[in-house]
């Protein structure tokens, strides 16, 4: 019995390792999104982000880690994560109606990301942008799904 109990402690620690250690890495921080001249007013462009990824014991180079819809609004460039805040499906763009929508549960969003219809609890998650030598840099990040607050994870 004692021996079993002795194994329990380390056993729990083993299983709980990911809670206190980073097991995956990559796709965070500022990633290039292309030349600023690429992005148009009122017309979203989908940008893919590539980064090296650490996945437990693997290191994979130059993988697509996420994407964003990027467009100009007035003088600013806005980047909206393609991850739907509801449950995580990929957001599409409806060219005919100039809206973003999620094909999974049919949430609709305006061009600025505000949720107009459907089960999404909040607007599309905006990502930080930065300009460096004419190239747009976007800080890719992930946020909690299903909550009305935008919480980065």
């Amino acid at each position, binding site marked *: 019995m004692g021996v079993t109990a002795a194994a329990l402690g380390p056993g729990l620690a083993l*299983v*709980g390792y*990911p*809670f206190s250690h*980073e*097991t*995956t890495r990559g*796709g965070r921080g500022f990633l290039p999104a*292309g*030349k600023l*001249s*690429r992005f148009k007013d009122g017309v979203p462009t989908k940008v*893919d*982000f590539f980064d090296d990824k650490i*996945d*437990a*014991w*693997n290191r*994979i180079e130059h*993988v*697509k*880690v*996420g*994407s964003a819809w990027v467009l100009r609004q007035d003088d600013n460039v806005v980047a909206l994560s*393609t991850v739907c805040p*509801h*449950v*995580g*499906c*990929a*957001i*599409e763009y409806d060219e005919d109606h100039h809206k973003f929508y999620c*094909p*999974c*549960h*049919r*949430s609709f969003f305006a061009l600025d990301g505000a949720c107009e219809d*459907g*089960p*999404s*609890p909040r607007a599309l998650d905006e990502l930080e942008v930065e300009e460096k030598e004419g190239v747009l840099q976007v800080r890719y990040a*992930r946020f*909690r*799904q*299903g*909550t*009305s607050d935008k919480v980065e*994870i």
Partner: protein
Amino acid sequence: MRIGEWIDDRTGWGAAWQRFRALEVPHAGWRHTFGAILTYLFFLQVVLGILLASYYSPSATDAWASTVYINDRVTAGWLLRGLHHHGTSAMVIVVGLHVARMLWESVYRRPRELVWFSALVLGALVLAFAITGFPLPWDQDGYWGAKIRMGIIGTAPGGEFLVEFLKGGDDYGNLTLLRFYTLHVFVLPAVFVLFLFLHLSQHFRHAGSLAKRSGRPPSRYYPDQLWYDMLAITLVAAALLVTTVATHGAPLYAPAQPASGYIARPEWYFLSLFQLLRVFDGPLQIVATVLLPGALATTLVALPWLDPGTEATAYRARLVVPAAALVMAGIVTLSAIAVAQDRDDEVYQKNRKAAFKDADRARELAVEGVLPPGGEAVYFNDPQIVVRMLFAEQCETCHAIDGIGGEEAPDLTGYGSRKWLREVIRDPNAPSKYGHTRLDDMEAYPEDELPQPQLVAVVEYLVSLAGEDGGSTDAALVAKGKALFDDELDCNNCHEVEPHESGDGPNLFGRGSRAWIGRVIADSSADDLFGSDAEMPKYGSKLTKEEIELLAEFVYSQRDANQDENADEGSGDTTGNDSD
């Protein structure tokens, strides 16, 4: 001494056999076969699982490739995997029938409460097996299904912790897959067997007493019920086999692509929950994820107390079956609505078609073997993908195609098409041509200096210079163009057309052919190409011959990219070239 006696003498199993023969059941019949069918299906799944486990590799890099290997290459792999997949659906159906019968016969009442509870746990375990098993191929369907489910669980109270535990960290990857696998292969089967043992031992313990209470003599399991069980199992097994063969086994989609737009749907038995989520959105989401399912589960667990079968609660007994029927009807209706909505959803249907096409392509490419990064790396077997990546890495900084890329060098959209050639002659220093380069010696030829019909003829001649790679040309127009090129316009003052001669402008012999483009990529500063003012890096020393060939082919193919735009413009010209 006979064998039977020899074994019994060593093991004492003879007594166990006698006990088995003495097992009683309240009565024998078809509707009592569900339990045996489920036990059979469970052990079938275990055996199939073990067979699959001799080929499947549970890492994020190898899961998809090994599943394709099993499904598409290993003998009968598709059949065994298909049986395992459809076996789950079979179990869910039979669990439903089994629970329905238990409700009908009020099995939850004293003294068989434990039979009832263990049945509920076993039913939940079947669903847990499904949830942990479906992501294992790490294909689009499995990955997105898991991701969405984790998202949903995360919204429930305490869900965040469970999700992080199951994910093995912040993101989906190796640890996530392994945790699902470990649960599916080691933990859940052990728990299932434990509860199955409890369930069966409790069932048989009380069987005799129940029969006595009803006043009828009990039947014996062996041979009465066993006969029904064997027949029912055979029928179910046959149905499972036929279904698996008819559906060509289980579906398998393209490898998981975390940044793509795949529209996931849960398995058919979860469709009602899926539909509930569509109905209860925003802050009401918790109704669909926790409250309604929780209420149903709680009611089922509490049935022994809600309907103990006493005189005082006799009216409740009459409610159980209608209530269950109502719930079942609700589940079926919600599922039907979900299916109908999807059938009418154009976007969803389009996404489905694309997903199947994607799947076929990926599985086709996998036959050559998947490179070590695994999963999506299968697309590296596709030369189209490789060349696009190469272009993006090496050329895109300066050259744009279809709006993506730099502006320091000529835009290669439609490069080599008649339209592109017309544009470069009309205005060689336009920003989308050589305007941002140091090559500025050529003057523009606006319409008043070079009428459109003449331009069209010259361009036809230029196309013919590519030789075979130029495609079909109008011979008369080519001759006219050549005459203009040599004599009237004196283009050949700067542009030679005899091989190897250099001039002030690029020698146009072979221009636009794959070989010529390849030479430009390798070293555009050659004397007979763009000369010392050329700023383009010399890729001859940076890339392999194969890579340059691939890129040349890719750039060459841009001329056909926009067919209709390459049609002739211009006043009354009837040559009508519609293919470049």
